[in-house]
């Protein structure tokens, strides 16, 4: 296999990380909705934490993106 084909496969493999991130973001908002339905009073107070968790989880997806970009463009 030549190196450029291996690069494309590697960059594609790097996106597998999105599976975990999908589970993570779904879990965050799913838990928030089920919690908010049980106790609507408390929902606005935890929404800041929800966004923080969302941003931290999304960052994992972007780490994978950076790896994919590094494989494609740096090496």
């Amino acid at each position, binding site marked *: 296999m030549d190196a450029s084909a291996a690069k494309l496969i590697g960059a594609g493999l790097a996106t597998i990380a999105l599976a975990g991130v999908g589970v993570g973001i779904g879990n965050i908002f799913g838990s928030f909705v089920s919690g908010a339905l049980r106790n609507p009073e408390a929902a606005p107070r935890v929404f800041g934490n929800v*966004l923080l968790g969302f*941003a931290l989880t999304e960052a994992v997806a*972007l780490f994978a993106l950076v790896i994919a970009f590094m494989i494609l463009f740096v090496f």
Partner: protein
Amino acid sequence: MHSPMEQFEIKRLLNFHIGSLDASFTNSALWMVVAVALATVVFVFGMSRRAMVPGRLQATAELGYEFIAGMVRDNVGNAGRKYFPFIFTLFVFILFCNLLGLVPYAFTPTSHIIVTFAMALVVFLGVTVIGFVRHGAHFLSFFVPKGVPLVLLLLLVPIEVISYFVRPFSLSIRLFANMLAGHTMLKVFGGFVVMLGLYAGWAPLAFIIAFTGLELLIAFLQAYVFAILTCLYLNDAIHLSH
């Protein structure tokens, strides 16, 4: 057609050389100056009238101030009051850089790893110095979790040390990758509009409009996350809590 990565290219606007050091004034530096100038205008003009019933600009300035002041109070406590100006400056600078980057043809300084890494490194070094100044050698106990058997400590202490030293990297990559990915995505879909032309081009155009709204949210969210993580790190250093 231009590459979607072309927007991140750094161009020299004024050439400066100090010895062998290239200190040219670039488009990145220009937009950082614009961000600082605009932030100064908003806060100086906003607060100059000091009206009892704030106008729009004053309300914006007060809202931003109270938002960060509340964040520092909640996360660091009273001891964090000293560091509020630093965190507020950091937040406002990142927020204005992110928001200005959304203006068409503008450059986003925070989409460059070196800019975000410099900020993250200042936070990391500052927090470490604060920890050592306040607690001396006792600060090292931060790396030793309490109530853990000795055998497990052999495993946990290296993990704690590594996760501490990874902080500046995760802090900087988070901001830079968010900006990079968002702006690349906008440009890629901009290319789709041109490619699909008059009949089908409106679909990606509608997506771009919706996505710009999301990018506005992310521009704010990333500034918020950077500031709140700085608060959390500061809290670790001041209270040695886990």
